[in-house]
Structure formats: structure tokens, C-alpha cells
């Protein structure tokens, strides 16, 4: 593999500092990374797999190997330390773990909004014992520690090791049910804010544990605060204060490079709020015109996104992935402050050649300060 000119960390920090790095930084492939587990690459698009989703997330050895394998193959700048929501289960949600899909919370632990007072703060002991521990929190902390150790032992250029917590409003939706949460914002706003605040505090404590275990960075998607679900007014009243509290806690505990906030839907009427949450960068949904977002808030906030996760990556050819990605990079990367990613989580069965193209993009296409584009040298991958 050809060596990059600067380290992953330097590249990411440059983008967050609104500068132009040597190339566009690029994030991990979300849940698609499961295809690096065992022999799954040979089973893409097939019903049967070598390693199931459940095996992947519950076995630190398998999970860590898959993440390292992905990094080695595509040389992305961030590596994922478990990309789904652990906390709902830890707070009492009954979960279903499908063979090939993200676990889903099938039963909420509370019925009324103020029932949150009956929920125990989750056990966050970092005491993983191989073959015995089944607690998801302990498994995730073990994964983060092991990924960190792998890259430390190699003494090589380590990608940003990324932990995961949901946005507070989203966690509140898991606990109460999204329909009830939506109505409780109108019926019982004060109690709803208390629930959200409890969720914020839980996520903050868990975030600290993840940093202690070796994370460099935390990803907090907040899909229930989507611009397609709640108005800017409700976002400002319910989601924003909690997201801001969460983000401040992350930067206070770690540093200003440590927080990735993701929000779904059309958020163009609230970009000013997103800009001031305090995250290191914001990733936006593919429904957003990223160029417009950058024009509006890009002078103060780095932006990531937003290749359509159900577009060319899923059904298109490599050429179509290249075209779609190139257009975004050319529109948004000039003058820095940009990181390449999709507009939301990855489908599990994108064809390998399309994923390969996605990770070739930042190395093929480069923006220079005078806005003239050249085909940059292609790093072998």
C-alpha cells in the first residue's frame, strides 16, 4: 500500500480545523464492515453468511479482526468500535438480534414518560471476561480496547478509533417508544425534558468509558431528531439542548476533535442550530444539498456526507459510484472542512466493487485551493 503523506489523525484534524488536508478524509463503512468478518466477503448478496450479525457484535475477536481487515484493505481514516445502539438494551429494552441485520428494540422498558425514574443507571463496569461476559457494554469496551491495542502494537499510523452513543432524543425514543415520545413533547414537555436529560447523562457516562477504553472519537447519530420528524422549534426545545450538553461533555473529556454528530432528514431549516451544537463535525443526510449546507455553515463547522446510501452504492456500477461521489467532493471539498461519507448507515449488501470505488474516490479526486481539480495519484488498495 502506498503511504499517505500525512497521518490519519493529522488529516482528520486538518479537516475539522477547516483546512485542506492532503486528501479528503473518509469514514468507515458503517454496518457494511460485517463483510470483513470471517469469510463474509465471499457471501455478499447471498442469504447464508459465514459470520452472522449476532456473532459479529457479540464476539470481540471476530469484530476486531474484521475492523482491522477493513482498515488494511481500504485505508480509511476512522475505524468503527461497534456501530449500533448498546444502551437501549442496557436500560431494559427487549431486543431482537436478527441473523443479518442490526438488533432492534422490540419492547420498551417504560410506558409513561416519568417512568424513567424507575430505570436503573446501567452497569458500566469494564470487566470483560472472554467466554463469559454477555453484557453489551462490556463487549463494546473490550472491542475498543483491543482495536486500540492492535494499532498501538503495530506502531503504525492508526485511524481514529470511534465509539458509539445515540443522540439523547433517540435514546429517549427507544425507552418510551417514538410515537409516545412525539406526543409527550406536546402533552408533558417538562417530564419529557427530564427523560431526555436522564438519557443525556447516561450517554455521557458511557462516552467517558469508551474514551477510557481507547476511543479517540465518538459517533452520535440522532435519527429521532430527524428534520423529517420534528420541527425546528421542537428540535430547538427538546433535541438541541441535550445534544449540546452531550457534545460539550465529549470535548471537555477528550478534545475538540472527538465528536461526530449525525442527523437524518431535511435539516436545512436548522443548520444554524446544528452549527452551534459543539461537535467536531456534522454529517448530513443525502436528501441535503451539501454544497448549500457548506455555504451556510461551512465557515465555522466541518461537514461530512452524503453519498446516497440507497443510490449508486446499492444498485449502480462503479462508474456511477465514482460520478456520484466525485460530484459531492468537487462541490464541497474545496477550501477544506469536509469529510467523505454516506448520508446514513450502509446497507449490508453493497457490492464489493462499489465499496472499493467509494474508498478509491478520496485518493483519486483531489481539490486544490485554486478550485482546479486534477486526478490525484491513485494509491493501490
Amino acid at each position, binding site marked *: 500500500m502506498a503511504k499517505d503523506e500525512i497521518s490519519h489523525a493529522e488529516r482528520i484534524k486538518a479537516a475539522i480545523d477547516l483546512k485542506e488536508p492532503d486528501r479528503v478524509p473518509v469514514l468507515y463503512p458503517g454496518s457494511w464492515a460485517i463483510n470483513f468478518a470471517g469469510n463474509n466477503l465471499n457471501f455478499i448478496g447471498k442469504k447464508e453468511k459465514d459470520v452472522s450479525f449476532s456473532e459479529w457484535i457479540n464476539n470481540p475477536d471476530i469484530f476486531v479482526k474484521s475492523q482491522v481487515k477493513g482498515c488494511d484493505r481500504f485505508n480509511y481514516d476512522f475505524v468503527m468500535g461497534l456501530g449500533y445502539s448498546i444502551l437501549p438494551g442496557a436500560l431494559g429494552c427487549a431486543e431482537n438480534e436478527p441473523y443479518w441485520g*442490526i438488533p432492534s428494540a422490540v419492547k420498551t422498558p417504560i410506558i409513561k414518560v416519568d417512568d424513567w425514574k424507575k430505570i436503573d443507571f446501567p452497569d458500566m463496569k469494564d470487566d470483560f471476561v472472554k467466554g463469559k461476559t454477555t453484557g453489551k457494554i462490556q463487549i463494546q469496551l473490550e472491542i475498543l480496547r483491543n482495536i486500540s491495542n492492535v494499532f498501538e502494537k503495530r506502531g503504525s499510523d492508526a485511524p481514529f478509533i470511534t465509539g458509539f452513543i445515540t443522540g439523547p432524543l433517540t435514546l429517549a425514543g427507544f425507552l418510551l417508544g417514538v410515537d409516545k415520545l412525539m406526543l409527550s413533547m*406536546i402533552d408533558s414537555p417538562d417530564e419529557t425534558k427530564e427523560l431526555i436529560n436522564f438519557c443525556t447523562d447516561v450517554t455521557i457516562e458511557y462516552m467517558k468509558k469508551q474514551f477510557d477504553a481507547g476511543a479517540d472519537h465518538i459517533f452520535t447519530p440522532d435519527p429521532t431528531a430527524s428534520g423529517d420528524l420534528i420541527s425546528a422549534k421542537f428540535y430547538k426545545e427538546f433535541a438541541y439542548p441535550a445534544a449540546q450538553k452531550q457534545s460539550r461533555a465529549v470535548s471537555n473529556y477528550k478534545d475538540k476533535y472527538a465528536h461526530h454528530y449525525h442527523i437524518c432528514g431535511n435539516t436545512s431549516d436548522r443548520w444554524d442550530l446544528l452549527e452551534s451544537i459543539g461537535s467536531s463535525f456534522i454529517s448530513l443526510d443525502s436528501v441535503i444539498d451539501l454544497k448549500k449546507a457548506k455555504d451556510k455553515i461551512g465557515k465555522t463547522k466541518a461537514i461530512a456526507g452524503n453519498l446516497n446510501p*440507497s443510490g449508486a452504492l446499492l444498485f449502480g456500477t462503479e462508474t456511477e459510484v465514482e460520478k456520484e461521489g466525485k460530484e459531492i467532493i468537487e462541490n464541497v471539498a474545496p477550501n477544506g472542512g469536509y469529510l467523505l461519507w454516506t448520508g*446514513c*448507515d450502509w446497507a449490508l449488501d453493497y457490492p464489493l466493487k462499489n465499496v472499493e470505488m467509494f474508498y478509491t474516490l478520496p485518493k483519486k479526486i483531489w481539490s486544490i485551493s485554486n478550485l482546479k481539480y486534477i486526478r490525484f495519484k491513485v494509491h493501490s488498495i
Partner: protein
Amino acid sequence: MDNEELNEFYEKMAQAVVDGNEDECIRLANLGIEEQIDAYDIIIKGCAHGMTIVSDLYEKREMFVPEILLSARAMSGAVDILKPYIKTDDIKETGCVCIGVVLGDIHDIGKNLVKLLLETAGLRVIDLGRDVPTEDFIETVEKEKVDIVALSALMTTSMMEMKETVKELNEKYPNVKTMVGGAPVSKEFADKIGADSYADNASEAIRVVQGLLG
């Protein structure tokens, strides 16, 4: 009530639904019964009309999900009172839609809104709930007289289940129409997986269903 007063009554009911004013919906429903106004007309010309306005306001980004749920709750308050007074002859079902969130996905707000709007538009809706495997859709089509199967997914990680379901339905029941919707889904996606149609939001879903039913 003369026609003008009746129209004013329906408008008031529609507005109470838009405002999410459950007390007013219940008061108007009771008043309607007292005044011997046809219960079915109150639902269709008042409640359902209100939900259509709500749906249009969502499309314009003037209302969002909390307000829509409030309107739905208010409407249900009225419908619960009116339902026992509906004459069987009044019910003119214009088609049957089987709806569900696909396997691996439990996010059902969008599906519930579409269901509500379809019902208020006079359609028969069979709701299979969430996390629904392909076999359940097939079994329902086998047993019931279904015109359209509507599939919902919120996550990119679950939307590929739609492909499986649509494929099986197209093979086994080519006369049954399929439509898909949900945050990660697009017209392009619908075309690629062989679905007959796609709706971007709940109010569009009603138009799509009406279009598919001809």
C-alpha cells in the same frame, strides 16, 4: 341543519382535527349524533378532510410528526363515538391495502400514518405491524382480497428485505400491486427492486394508492 350549516359543521370538525383538539372533536361528534347528522359523512367530510389538510401541511413542512399524531388522536376520539352509528350500507370500501414494516425493522410511525390516512380515505387496510417476514405478506395475499401491498422501512440495513418481498409477490401474485416507502427508499430504488410504485410521504401514499387502484 341546512346544507350551509352542515358544511360549517364539517369544517369545524376538520379544523378540530387539524388543531389536534381532541375535546372539540369529541364534542362535535356528540353534537353530530344529537343532530342526527350521518356519522359516515362526519367521518369522511369532517375528520378525513381534516387529516388530508394535516397531510398536506406535513408535505409543506408546516406540521411534523408530533402534531400529526395529535391530530390522529383527536380524530380517533371522534371516530370512536361515531363508529357505532355508521350504517353498513354507507361503507364503500374502494380497495384493500396490506401494509407492514419489513423484516428487521421496527420503526412504524410512517407506516401508521399511511395506514391512518388510507383508512380515512375509505380503504380497507390490513396492518401486519412491524418486523414482518415475506411469508406473512404472502399468506395475507393468499387469504384476503388484497389489491396493494405497501412496504415500509426506515433503515438502510433493512430496506433490502423489500426486494425479497416484492420479488416473491411479483412471482406469485403479479396482479397484486406493490408500493414502497420510508426514509432510505427512493423512486430509483423502487424501480430497481421491481415495485410498482413509491411514495415519498404519507399524503403522497394516498395519491399513489388511488392511482394504482385506477
